[in-house]
């Protein structure tokens, strides 16, 4: 994060993504009134949500930057892989959409089963996402150092 534009971009992604997660996890409500409410039982999920947003923001912006400034194929591949990993990890909260799709398609079915499974293991899924993002962050950091050495 050496340039202000990268910092601003990261903050934008973190804030947008964090708001999305809080909304999906029902900590933030916009209708009928704007309410921010965290029950005691939701503190662990909120902490994971914040961690996920911060890591997703860093990984997305840094990897985009690495892809754009890549001098060799290896660097670009790492960047692409990081973007892919960030999207996979970040996409985990989208399982909340599965029940909605299930309703659209009728009760039951494979979609419903996946939704139920992911819902039951929400903490584990989110923890795995955080671990994946941490590994990717470490990979990006190493990649950046290698590029500097080449220069």
């Amino acid at each position, binding site marked *: 994060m050496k340039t202000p*534009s990268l910092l601003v*971009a990261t903050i*934008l*992604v973190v804030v*947008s*993504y964090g*708001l*999305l997660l809080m*909304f*999906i996890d*029902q900590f933030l*409500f*916009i*209708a*009928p*009134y704007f*309410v921010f*409410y965290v*029950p005691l*039982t939701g503190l662990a999920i909120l902490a994971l949500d914040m961690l996920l947003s911060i890591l997703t923001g860093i990984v*997305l912006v840094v990897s*985009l930057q690495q892809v*754009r400034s890549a001098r060799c194929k290896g660097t670009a591949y790492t960047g692409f892989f990081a973007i892919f990993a960030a999207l996979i990890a970040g996409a985990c909260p*989208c399982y*909340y*959409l599965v*029940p*909605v799709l*299930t*309703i659209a398609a009728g*009760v*039951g079915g494979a979609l*419903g089963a996946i939704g*139920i499974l992911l*819902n*039951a293991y929400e903490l584990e899924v989110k923890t795995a996402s955080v671990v994946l993002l941490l590994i990717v962050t470490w990979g990006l950091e190493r990649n950046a150092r290698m590029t500097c050495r080449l220069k």
Partner: protein
Amino acid sequence: MESVKRKVVRERKRETAISLGIVIIVIIGLLGYYHGPSHMLSPSQGSSASSKSNMATVLLAGTYPVLGSSSAPVTIVEFGDFQCTTCGAWFHSQEPQLLQGLVKAGRAKLVWRDFDYLGPDSIVASEAAYAAGEQGKFWEYYDLLYSNQGIINSGWASRQDLEQFASQLGLNMMEFNASLQSNKYLQLVTSNYNLGTSLGVTSAPTFFVIGPDGKTITIVGDQPYSVFQTAVDSLVSG
């Protein structure tokens, strides 16, 4: 050479702005998609007064269990699923306050409509609750189901467990079993689900707070008691 460099820098800045724009649009799109249907029902969306009254008429038609005074000016219709964990969370954290502050105070009554979208155990649980209702114990059975919630479709709402809950409440087991085995409430359960989807319900719990004039406020999710209090206040004060 310098102008080429500047051009490249400008190009890159534009690319970054476009990428960020796309990310933000996708996030806003997801937000809109996720809560879209509920917004359609919100009074703040500018629906006409007649359509609000129509919605209240549809919501209050037919038979359903009611908790509270029939003369209460506000009706809160809960669309829930006994297997839904968010419904269970709301039941434990917010419902006691709602019952104390609004229902027992005579300001609102609570109506149950099942929205069984989580599979076969949800449907049987609803049927069992209605069967308990025949003996005047619907709400007690409702409390027992939410208090004993397990992992979705794991068998916690098996027929055997449902009979055990009925037995705990001291119900006449012959009558309860006969009612449950007849599947006589299956049609009600199906029609409640269809009613919910026709009103835009996509998740549980979803609440419709109906004022004395039929004006309706939709509350989706495990929202705090203060939201219900504000909604009731605004509907009563007009």
